[in-house]
């Protein structure tokens, strides 16, 4: 494949791949797509793919078998989409290897398997199968970043271009000045998706203003929180979207240096993003003098080694520079002195992925989505015993109740909702009576929750609030980088007190010691992660005071999780 020389060359190429895409879907061969992503591989998607390959050959079905990315419905993996000639594509869920023969035989007979279907990709029902867009999981979603999730092959730049990819980058490159790009991002009021919610446009503007070169643009795909998996799914399902956002970012900052720092654990995300970069180089969308312009851009992929702290901006930059990933004091801020002491604009994966849409349709269009202060859509993930575990993309402003009970289907049989942990390990939980809060950057904070990166953990009656608080605090203790004392010494102290309470030796004054110690950690820690480390514990104490009370005063664990029950027995035995 030769490098594309200029804009006309790109247009010709795009027209050709678009035609090929149309022919694929209008042809007289079957088109069978299998979702291959981190979560579906865990549930056997590769085996399903191999079985399908064998069965289709055996049965002599003329079919094009292709891989696509994840579509967010973890609960229905592995999924298989089948387009028979002359019929709309039907998506089937939970197609494990044992169901493959059944499916292929039915298809060969010209039947559909309505009982296995999630929906049909069409406006109208087909063969008793409802349109996919009406599936309860998708009906309330607004998919921009995930619009092509499960449709395009993540390892094919052609698929992406055929679906209109890199149009936004071309528009920026040929029709807009870098200042205009920044102005659009500012107008969109796109706020950072990593958790802090700082407006991306303002960050980009300060990056432009700083007079030092070279400048760097960095994607933060580290995602080390224990409760969120949206970024890696995005990279696994549509890596070119993130790459296009990064390219636009580099153009806006007028720099040829782009980075993506991806958590080393997300092997498939790393692999697919690297492949996307390779393809973009091959086609001439990365490299020197892109499409005959003066703009050059080079993207390097760097991987993390499993340290949560490396998701913090300055720590991440030290990690890229081959040092221990520990944060530093600010100012200077990263936009003044970041990577290699040069101005660096760092944003979350999801933030960059939102940029192509903003450039294509305008900042005003994006600002019309969501709420006034939190515009656009948000990727959210859910964990715990709900019916439909997965990644959803919703418009900001939907209530948490709608999200949990409509999109994610509510609790599984036999589980009763107790609370939902918000904001990862940086905020507290919300109880059942607080669920009518809208999902945006600001509304949850007064209640002790937080949007954070959009990971929600639903827990049921079998989870003890004290034990859960211990888990979240222990995470922060383990992941503390040990640079500053309040975090390094404070978190172990909190865990120690919690362990005392869990073991039945809690004293009423312990809660005051926790509050006092937490205050020190919050006020004195060096980085953002230390400053919020005690928040989950304080949130749990606020949301479930009666459980802490039961542990301390009555020496019992209502959920029967903590070792306290044994301690009580031992104490009783000692009294004899």
């Amino acid at each position, binding site marked *: 494949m030769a490098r594309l020389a200029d804009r006309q060359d790109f247009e010709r190429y795009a027209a050709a791949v678009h035609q090929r895409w149309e022919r694929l879907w209008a042809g007289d061969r079957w088109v069978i797509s299998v979702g291959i992503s*981190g*979560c579906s591989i*865990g*549930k*056997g998607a590769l085996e399903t793919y191999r079985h399908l390959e064998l069965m289709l050959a055996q049965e002599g079905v003329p079919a094009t078998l292709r891989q696509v990315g994840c579509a967010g419905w*973890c*609960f229905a*993996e592995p999924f298989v989409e089948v387009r028979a000639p002359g019929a709309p594509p039907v998506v089937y869920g*939970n197609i*494990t290897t044992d169901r493959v023969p059944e499916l292929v035989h039915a298809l060969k007979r010209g039947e559909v398997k309505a009982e296995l279907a999630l929906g049909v990709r069409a406006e109208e029902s087909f063969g008793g199968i409802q349109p996919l867009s009406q599936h309860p999981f998708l009906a309330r979603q607004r998919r921009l970043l995930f619009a092509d999730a499960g449709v395009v092959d993540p390892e094919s730049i052609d698929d992406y271009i055929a679906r209109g990819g890199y149009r936004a980058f071309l528009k920026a490159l040929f029709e807009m000045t870098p200042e205009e790009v920044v102005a659009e991002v500012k107008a969109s009021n796109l706020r950072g998706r990593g958790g802090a919610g700082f407006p991306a446009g303002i960050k980009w503007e300060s990056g432009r203003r700083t007079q030092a070169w070279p400048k760097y643009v960095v994607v933060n795909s580290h*995602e*080390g*929180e*224990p*409760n*969120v*998996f949206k970024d*890696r*799914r995005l990279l696994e399902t549509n890596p070119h979207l993130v790459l296009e956002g990064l390219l636009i970012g580099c153009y806006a900052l007028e720099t040829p240096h782009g980075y993506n720092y991806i*958590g*080393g*654990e*997300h092997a498939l995300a790393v692999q697919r993003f690297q492949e996307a970069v390779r393809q973009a180089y091959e086609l001439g969308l990365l490299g020197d003098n892109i499409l005959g312009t003066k703009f050059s851009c080079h993207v*390097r992929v*760097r*991987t*993390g*080694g*499993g*340290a*949560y702290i490396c998701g913090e901006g300055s720590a991440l930059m030290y*990690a*890229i*520079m*081959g*040092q*221990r*990933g520990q944060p530093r004091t600010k100012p200077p801020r990263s936009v003044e002195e970041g990577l*290699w002491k040069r101005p660096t604009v760092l944003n979350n994966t999801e933030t960059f992925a939102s940029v192509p849409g903003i450039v294509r349709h305008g900042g005003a269009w994006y600002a019309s989505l969501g709420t006034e202060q939190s515009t656009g859509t948000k990727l959210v*993930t859910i*964990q*715990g*015993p709900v019916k439909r*575990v*997965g990644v959803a993309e919703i418009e900001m402003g939907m209530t948490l109740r709608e999200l949990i009970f409509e999109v994610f289907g509510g609790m599984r049989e036999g589980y009763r909702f107790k609370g939902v*942990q918000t904001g*990862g390990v940086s905020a507290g939980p919300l109880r059942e009576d607080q669920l009518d809060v809208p999902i945006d950057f600001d509304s949850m904070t007064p209640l002790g929750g937080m949007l954070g990166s959009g*990971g929600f*953990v*639903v*827990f*049921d009656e079998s*989870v003890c609030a004290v*034990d*859960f608080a211990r*888990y*979240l605090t222990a*995470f922060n203790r*383990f*992941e503390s980088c040990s640079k500053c004392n309040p975090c390094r010494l404070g978190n172990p102290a909190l865990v120690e007190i919690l362990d005392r309470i869990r073991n039945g030796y809690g004293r009423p004054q312990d809660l005051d010691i926790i509050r006092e110690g937490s205050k020190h950690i919050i006020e004195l820690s060096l980085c953002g992660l230390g400053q919020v480390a005690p928040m989950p514990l304080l949130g749990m104490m606020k949301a479930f005071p009666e459980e802490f009370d039961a542990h301390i005063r009555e020496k019992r664990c209502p959920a029967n999780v903590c070792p306290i029950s044994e301690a009580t027995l031992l104490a009783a035995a000692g009294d004899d």
Partner: protein
Amino acid sequence: MAHHVEPAEQVDLAPLREVLASQFRPRDSQEAYELIVGACQEAQRLYGWVPPEAAQAIADHLGVTINRIYGLLTFYADFRTEPPGKHFLWLCHGAACYVMGSSRLIEVLRERYGLEDHGVSPDRELTLHVFNGCLGVCDLAPVIQVDHHTYWGRLTPDRLTAAIDALKRGDPVEETDGPAG
């Protein structure tokens, strides 16, 4: 835990040197520093841990000090500086897995198999890494990734011990994938 070092087994550095020569070619000192973690990850992929010889080879290749390499190896949780056992268990201890009971699995592994986080079982059959982040297969929670490719999902303590016993015998353990839906 006491250091248990394999008796004088020579590490074959040829495959590592090949990877370094083909994929790790820094153009300047900045890039050399940027490549350290990636090179160590390659070494761990090849050997299951980063032997001192490999760390020295990486240091020599990239022109950085061995101290810098060990500074990173001991900072990041993913790296091992001691040899692993035969099978590698990567236990997800993310919030989803915690809510669904991963703490009980950690207890079973400690009490029944003598496995601590980052430790090797006394019979050198098993290595355990407890992953504090999220493996991202939350529908299977609680989940363990085994030998980097298979997943044991929706585990209970009983199913875990059955799966480990089968793994040690060399039998297939597919039946522990848990019910769908």
